[in-house]
């Protein structure tokens, strides 16, 4: 059992942060790696990136958006509760190196995945420009941590409620135009965001890393469910990735495969919400 020792609700309860006791994993984990978690015996195996670790205390940090049945179930877990299974660290760590000037772009919960990479790039002596975005001010996460992990931080909201009004891609274009010496872009967020950022950086000829989130099962290269096309070759995101060259990724295929279980996901989520509703009315 993997106990939750700290829990925080962010972005008005749509994003949850957990610190989970998993000493072996905490000791091994590197930025960019993920774990697979299962809440209980009937649960799904859900991949989540480690947003941070505390090897001394044997803890890992996961930050997830509540988007369906399984993440909603995770949300019900309180401090002192435990995940039944946590497996990791999985995937290839980010290849962190000194390139000079870099830009890190994060959207939504992607910011949580981006943060340890940004911090690592800064520690290696890179000049780090960060761009983070959300739909609206209340949904923006990790502003302070990202500020500390970068030299320049730009904030965007779709509705203009905070920072610049507009998408992160627009800010990325401005930054790339003004900083012709950028040697690396790291873009992590929703698939459309990564797709457009990659198109943008390609125009500027800047090498780009993205972190892919296909549906996964075992996370050890055994099932092939996480297959993605990169440079015309089949790759398994759980072992070959999750980070890939954004200029090579077939984002349309990824988008399509992420839709594999839409009807089932809706059914499961609706059933779960109904059962939660019942549970509440029962108590009151």
């Amino acid at each position, binding site marked *: 059992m993997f106990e939750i020792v700290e829990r925080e609700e962010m972005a008005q309860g749509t994003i949850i942060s957990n610190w989970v006791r998993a000493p*072996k*994993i905490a000791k*091994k984990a590197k930025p960019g790696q993920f774990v697979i978690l*299962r809440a209980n015996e*009937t*649960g*799904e*195996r859900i991949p989540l990136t480690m947003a941070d670790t505390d090897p001394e205390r044997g803890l890992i940090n996961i930050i997830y958006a509540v988007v369906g*049945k*399984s993440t909603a*179930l995770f949300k019900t877990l309180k401090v002192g509760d435990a995940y*039944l*299974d*946590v*497996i*990791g*660290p*999985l995937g290839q760590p980010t290849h962190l190196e000194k390139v000079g000037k870099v830009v890190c772009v994060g959207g939504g919960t992607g910011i949580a995945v981006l943060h340890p990479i940004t911090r690592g790039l800064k520690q290696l002596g890179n000049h780090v420009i960060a761009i983070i975005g959300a739909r609206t001010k209340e949904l923006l996460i990790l502003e302070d941590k990202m500020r500390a992990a970068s030299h320049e931080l730009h904030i965007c909201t779709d509705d203009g409620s905070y920072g610049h009004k507009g998408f992160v891609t627009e800010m990325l274009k401005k930054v790339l135009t003004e900083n012709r010496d950028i040697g690396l872009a790291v873009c992590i967020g929703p698939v459309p965001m990564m797709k457009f950022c990659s198109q943008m950086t390609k125009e500027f000829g800047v090498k780009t890393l993205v972190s892919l989130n296909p549906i996964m*099962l*075992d996370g*050890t*290269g*055994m*099932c*092939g*469910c996480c*297959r993605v*096309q990169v440079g015309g070759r*089949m790759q398994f995101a759980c*072992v070959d990735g999750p980070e890939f060259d954004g200029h090579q990724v077939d984002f349309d*295929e990824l988008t*399509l*495969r992420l*839709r*594999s*279980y839409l009807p*089932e*996901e809706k*059914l*499961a989520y609706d*059933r779960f919400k109904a059962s939660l509703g019942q549970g509440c009315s029962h108590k009151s």
Partner: protein
Amino acid sequence: MSEEVKAPKKEKIPRQKMPEQDPQVRRHNFNEVPYGYTPELAMKEAERCIQCKDPRCKQGCPVEIDIPGFIKFIKEGDFEAAIRKLWEKNSLPAVCGRVCPQEIQCEGLCVVGKKDEPVAIGNLERFAADYQRLHGRDILPPKAPPTGKKVAVVGSGPAGLTVAGDLILKGHEVTIFEALHAPGGVLIYGIPEFRLPKEIVAHECRYLERLGVKIEVNAVIGRTETVDELLERFDAVFLGVGAGLPMFLNIPGEHYIGVYSANEYLTRSNLMRAYDFPNYDTPLVRGKKVATFGGGNVAMDAARTALRMGAEHSYIIYRRSHAELPARAAEIHHAEEEGVEFLFLTNPVRFLGNEDGYLTGVECLKMELGEPDASGRRRPIPIPGSEFIVEIDTAVIAIGSGANPLLTKATPGLALNKWGYIIADPKTGKTMKPRVWAGGDIVTGAATVILAMGAGRLASNSIHDFLTYGW
């Protein structure tokens, strides 16, 4: 009861059939297909064995079970003695009785089979193990005094379970490390409930735990810990990680929604119990027209699972003919009875899909058989211009599996062959890396349960020698 046994006018007893669920009923449920022998049926079948002095059946058994020996005890109604006899050579008889290809092993050599059908050795083995599990006394074999030596077993498939069971009895401390959240290997994630109930596998693992074996699940060796780190804490390490790398057809359209590797399809339905969605959270596309590519046990399992998931048509598309199907005879027979439709001499060339990304069909070519190839089977050759389309909404690719590089890449000092399998001494399981042994599918490539167990047995003997005498 001994007086009439030798009666000269004894009537010839036909091979006793195991009672089974009706095919039309069972194709809709996940309960086990055969019910197993009753004690009466088992004793009657056991009488068919003529107790050969130099039994040929035993030569066909990769772990050399004393077959006439255990059958004799069944005939006499001493079922506990029968299971003890089996346990001398085989720690997983309930599993082997169900999944071994007996027709090409023990039963294929049985002398009774020359004129009549062979003795149903597999059914009897299964009976003895089931009887023990359900009705037997709770007996544990004696353990040697503790040696203070520690062994790590990586992977909990039949190879790893065998090594663990052998070495714990010899007094060593054993810890199994398993990447998935449940132990059993292919027995738990691959072979379906209707063929091998998961409770049986869980029972075998609990038995090992009662003997003192520690089982650590969620431990991906190579990631959570490395083999070199295990070597710091353990005196010896056995690698039985299986052949867990799915093969794809490498034809256009494999990304469409509804195209699965057999590993994914079966893991979803078995390990994750997707057949019980939404009571279990993991989904699986419930195809109406499903095609499975391949002709082995894995393909039969997938095609029969598809029926149980509600398929109206479940096809097996195989590029050779019926005679070359590598699956166990019993599985082919069961699949046919349940209504799986076989398209022989047929090879897929591309998948077709709609604009939403859903699979809609597969284009195939007709084949004819040419000269025998390296495997001795006649090589299928495409017939030009014979393209045709099969309408399907789900495809399961069951054309084999390869060596998963996750552990081997993270383990310096292991020698691998050109396909990525670990090179190990076939007599001892010793690898090129000191204090590391390997066996099962990760050495031989995808094979069988009993061969993995046989490899485990050889390795455990060698590990024991090493821990005891230092060689």
